[in-house]
Each structure stands twice: as C-alpha cells, then as structure tokens.
C-alpha cells in the first residue's frame, strides 16, 4: 500500500434497489490533495462514508492507509459546547490528538475559544469542525463538501491553509465537491464520479496535458485520432473536446485550432457535455 492512500476493488453500495456505487475500483495516491468531483447523487458521500468506516459496503473491498477522519458536509457541532469543549471532545474520543495543531488552525481564523458553537457564524463553525478534524492527525482527511457555506475569500483561505497542512505533513486530503470552481489550484489528483462509477481518474496535470479543445469548421468528427469526450455543433462550426496523447500540442491542420482546457472545462466536458461552461453541476 506504499504510496497509495485509498484503494478499492469492485466496491459497491446499494440502498434498496438503488446502487449508489457499483463495481468501483480506484487507487488514490498518498500525500496528495485529491479532488473528488461529481454531481449530487454521484456517490461521493457514500464513497467517503465507506472509506471512513461509518457505512458498510454492499460488495467489494476498500483499503485505507492509516487513520481516517471524515468531515461531513453538515459539519455537525454540539451547539452548547464551547470551542474549547469541542477540542476536548476531539481529545477524549481519539487515540491520537494534536492539540497544538487544532489551536493553530483556530488561531489562523481568529476563532474565540470560549464561545458556544451555536453562537458562531457558519464560517466560524466550519473552522471549528476543521480544527477538530485536523487535531485527530488523520493520515487521510475526507472533506465532504465542507466549504459550501463559505464566501469565495474564506474558501480560498481555507484551501490555501489546507494545502500548507498537506505540505507540512504526510496527510492525504480527499476534497469532495460539486462546485467545480472550488477546484482551481487546489487538487493534485482528480477522481470524477458519475452515477456511482468512476469516469475519470488521474493526476490533474497529466489529465490536462492529455486533453484539448479543437475548434474548426462544421464536421462530423475531429481532425485527429483520439477519444471524443464532448462535441458541440453550430451551423458553421464544430467544437470537440478530445483526449489525445499530446493534448493541446497535437498538430492540427488549418483552419482547425487546438486549445488547452482548464480543469473546470475538463470536468464539465465529462459530466455535462451540453451545459455552458462555468455553470455549477
């Protein structure tokens, strides 16, 4: 398992007749920030809950390297507990606890320790939940859409601090989101889920280097060999998102043009090929 944080083989989870995950096999690298992307209902929370050990799988296997902590999207806190009490909660209920790490996180965001959690703002509650999660010194930190209620500035601050934590430790962070804009500059590795299956899995830089947007006169097929991920046509023009070995460096004949994709473009091309770019999934 060296170098691998989470590995699944034929993993499946069924809720009555609905398969939330089906025949799911991936290998996620350690000490990276892994962006787990998918629309609502894609199976992100199910995968994280199984990885955290709080939900049994219906079939298949999963191996997680080291301690796992899950911070769910609701970021639950005991409303009557003060912030200090929440740290005491983490200290008492975990075999490993790093009080200083938790305090440092709270200090970065100026969270008062003596205030009841119920009287903190939504953003402050997120920081308290994050401090409890980080204090447990997880090998794998699973963040299930934790930044949803933060404003863009706070979201950027939190992701920046998270990256610093990953750089300073051997922690792996799995960041789940359905807001593609959250991903910019955050993730090292992309795992894209759709309807309980893995649609795309790999190092983000490699994936971006392997994809290109080809724009040219209306045509039934792109001018190069490769997997067509998305195609859109107007009366006189065609646009293809293609997976090729050279990506945007693929030589194309005039008047075709090859353009690189952003991560957001790439995700949207795989998940919602008929939606306009920049739209939330």
């Amino acid at each position: 398992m060296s170098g691998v944080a989470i590995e699944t083989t034929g993993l499946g989870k069924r809720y009555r007749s609905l398969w939330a995950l089906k025949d799911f096999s991936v290998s996620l690298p350690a000490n990276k920030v892994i962006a787990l992307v998918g629309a609502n209902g894609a199976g992100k929370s199910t995968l994280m809950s199984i990885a955290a050990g709080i939900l049994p799988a219906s079939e298949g296997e999963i191996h997680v390297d080291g301690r796992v902590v899950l911070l769910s999207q609701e970021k639950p806190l005991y409303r009557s507990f003060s912030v200090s009490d929440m740290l005491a909660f983490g200290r008492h209920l975990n075999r490993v606890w790093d009080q200083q790490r938790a305090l440092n996180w709270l200090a970065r965001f100026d969270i008062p320790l003596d205030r009841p959690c119920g009287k903190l703002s939504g953003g402050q509650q997120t920081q308290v939940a994050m401090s409890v999660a980080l204090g447990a010194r997880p090998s794998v930190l699973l963040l299930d859409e934790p930044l949803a209620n933060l404003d863009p500035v706070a979201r950027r601050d939190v992701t920046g601090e998270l990256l610093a934590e990953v750089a300073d430790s051997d922690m792996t962070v799995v960041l789940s989101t359905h807001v593609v804009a959250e991903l910019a500059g955050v993730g090292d590795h992309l795992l894209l889920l759709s309807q309980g299956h893995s649609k795309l899995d790999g190092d983000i830089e490699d994936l971006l280097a392997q994809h290109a947007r080809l724009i040219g006169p209306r045509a039934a097929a792109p001018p190069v060999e490769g997997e067509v991920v998305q195609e859109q046509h107007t009366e006189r023009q065609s646009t293809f998102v293609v997976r090729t070995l050279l990506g945007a460096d693929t030589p194309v004949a005039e008047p075709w043009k090859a353009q690189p994709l952003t991560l957001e473009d790439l995700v949207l091309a795989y998940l919602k090929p008929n939606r306009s770019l920049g739209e939330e999934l």
Partner: protein
Amino acid sequence: MKGLIWLTWRQHRWPIVASAVITVIFFVLMAITASDLGSMAAKCLTETADQCQRRSTEPVPSHAAYLMNSLVFLPVLVAVFWGVPLLAREFEQRTLPLAWSQDVSRLKWLAGKTAVMVVLIAAMGTVLAAESEHLAYQYHAYTAASLFEGTPFQAGGWLPLTLGLAWLAVGIAAGAATRRVLVAIAVVGGLWIVRMVAIVKLRTQFMTPVSVIKPFQIGKANRSGPPVFTFSNDMGINNGNPVFLDVHGGTHSPAQVMDGWCGSADDVNACLQQHGIVGSLVKFQPASRMGTFHLIENGMNLGLFVIALAVAWWCVKKTRTTVV
C-alpha cells in the same frame, strides 16, 4: 471509557446534577418521615387504642404516602430527561456523524454512554430504594397498612431501583426508534400509562391466589353485617371484598348480597341466614409471597431493561448517517 465518561457528563450534566439534588432531597425527607413514623409507632405501643388512632390521614403518614407515591413516578422522569435525549437529541441536532466518526465506534459510543448513565441511575436508585423500603416499613408499623399492596409494595423490594433502570432503557430505546425528542416523550408517556394499568391487573395473578372459606358465626358476634377479615401484609384480591358462600357451595357477589338482598334489612345476620349464606370465600396472596412477588416484578423490570437496550442497539446499528 474515560472519554465517554467526560462526554456523557458534558452533554447531560444538568439532568445529572438535578437528579442528584432530587435524590438527596428525597432521601432526607424520607429519612425524617420514617423517623417520625417510627417514633409514633413506638409511642402507640404504650397507648390505648383510643389514644393511638393509627390513621393514615394524619399529617406524617400522609406525607409518607405522598413521598412513596412520588418516588414511584420518578422512573418516568428518568426516561424523559436521561434516556430520551441520549439519542433523540443527537438525531435532531444531527451530531451523530460527528460522534461516530471519531475513534470510538457507534456501538462502543452507545455502550459507554449507556453504562455511565446506568451506573449513575443505579447509584441514585439504590439510595432511594433502600430508604423507601425503610419508610414503607415504618408506614406499615404505624398505620398497619399492608406492605404487600399499593404504594408500600412498589416502594419496597428494590423496585424503585429496577424500575428506574428499566425506564432509563425505555427512554433510550424510544429516542433511538423515533429520533425525535417530543415524539419519544409521548411514546414513553403512553407506555408508562399502559404499564401502570397492566401491572395492577397482572400483579395479583403472578401466583394462584390462596382461597379461604370463613364461616359466619351467626349469633356469636354482636355486630351487624359479616365480620371483616383482615390479613396483615397480605395482598387482598378484588380489593379485599370477599365473595359470599351459600349452603350449596354457590358464590354471590357482595353487591348482590349486601346491596341487593340485605341492603335494607334491619337484621343483616337474619337476612344472610334467610338467604342461605353461611360464610365467605376470601382470596388473597399471603404475606409470605411478598419477596417472591418483588423478585418477579424486579425480573420483569430487568427483562424490560434488556429488551429496550437491545432495541436501542439494533436501531443504532441500522442507522444511516450519510446521504447518497
């Protein structure tokens, strides 16, 4: 376990503190009342029947009865303020994913918190049950009320202890099953009423009652009406009303005989003789069975305790804390 002790204390400290205060208050009041009743009973031994009325309506015995009656209802408060919030409040505030995603598994979490509560309730229940039994005996010593009936029976034989434990578990199970505090409280209230009604009917049937035929000694007793048969510390069946027996072995209810045939008779004895009534059939549970009855009821309480905890355990095991 240390962590779960801390967590239980931090989350439930007000009910714990309030219960401890109530326990001390009840203990002191019961001890003082029992002491007063003991003194009154001892004084009665040196007085004539006219001087010592032994009335249960006097202030001190009334106070004792009030205390014992209140004690009998404390278990339902344990269910509402201790048991129900353990899971229902966590469900309502959606904090279970937080608690169960730490290094303590959900079943260890349930077992640990329940164990802390059981120990605390057992400690408080032991103190109260011991003193309530003492009070019941002093109440009996002064008023001669049977220890085998009504409140004195429920206050004795460690029943307050096992009832408290059972209803703690019922509260936990109700909270686990309904996941809503108010709904769980309503369920607990309904079950408590069912239990009260059912146990009164069941208790007399734990064992087959003893039947005794008491012949009337007509002409020897200088009183109107049949003699009253009292059995100290026995449990009377049918509220202690005997069934009348005729010369052919047939039985007649008190209402038929005393209200119908002989209700307006000047000479009740003559009336009874005229209708062939020769005696009465008395059914009762003898005092010697009181310990067995306490054991049976304690066993029922502990059975309820185990079943309710099993229900709570099953609910927690089946709980899904995630969305798809």
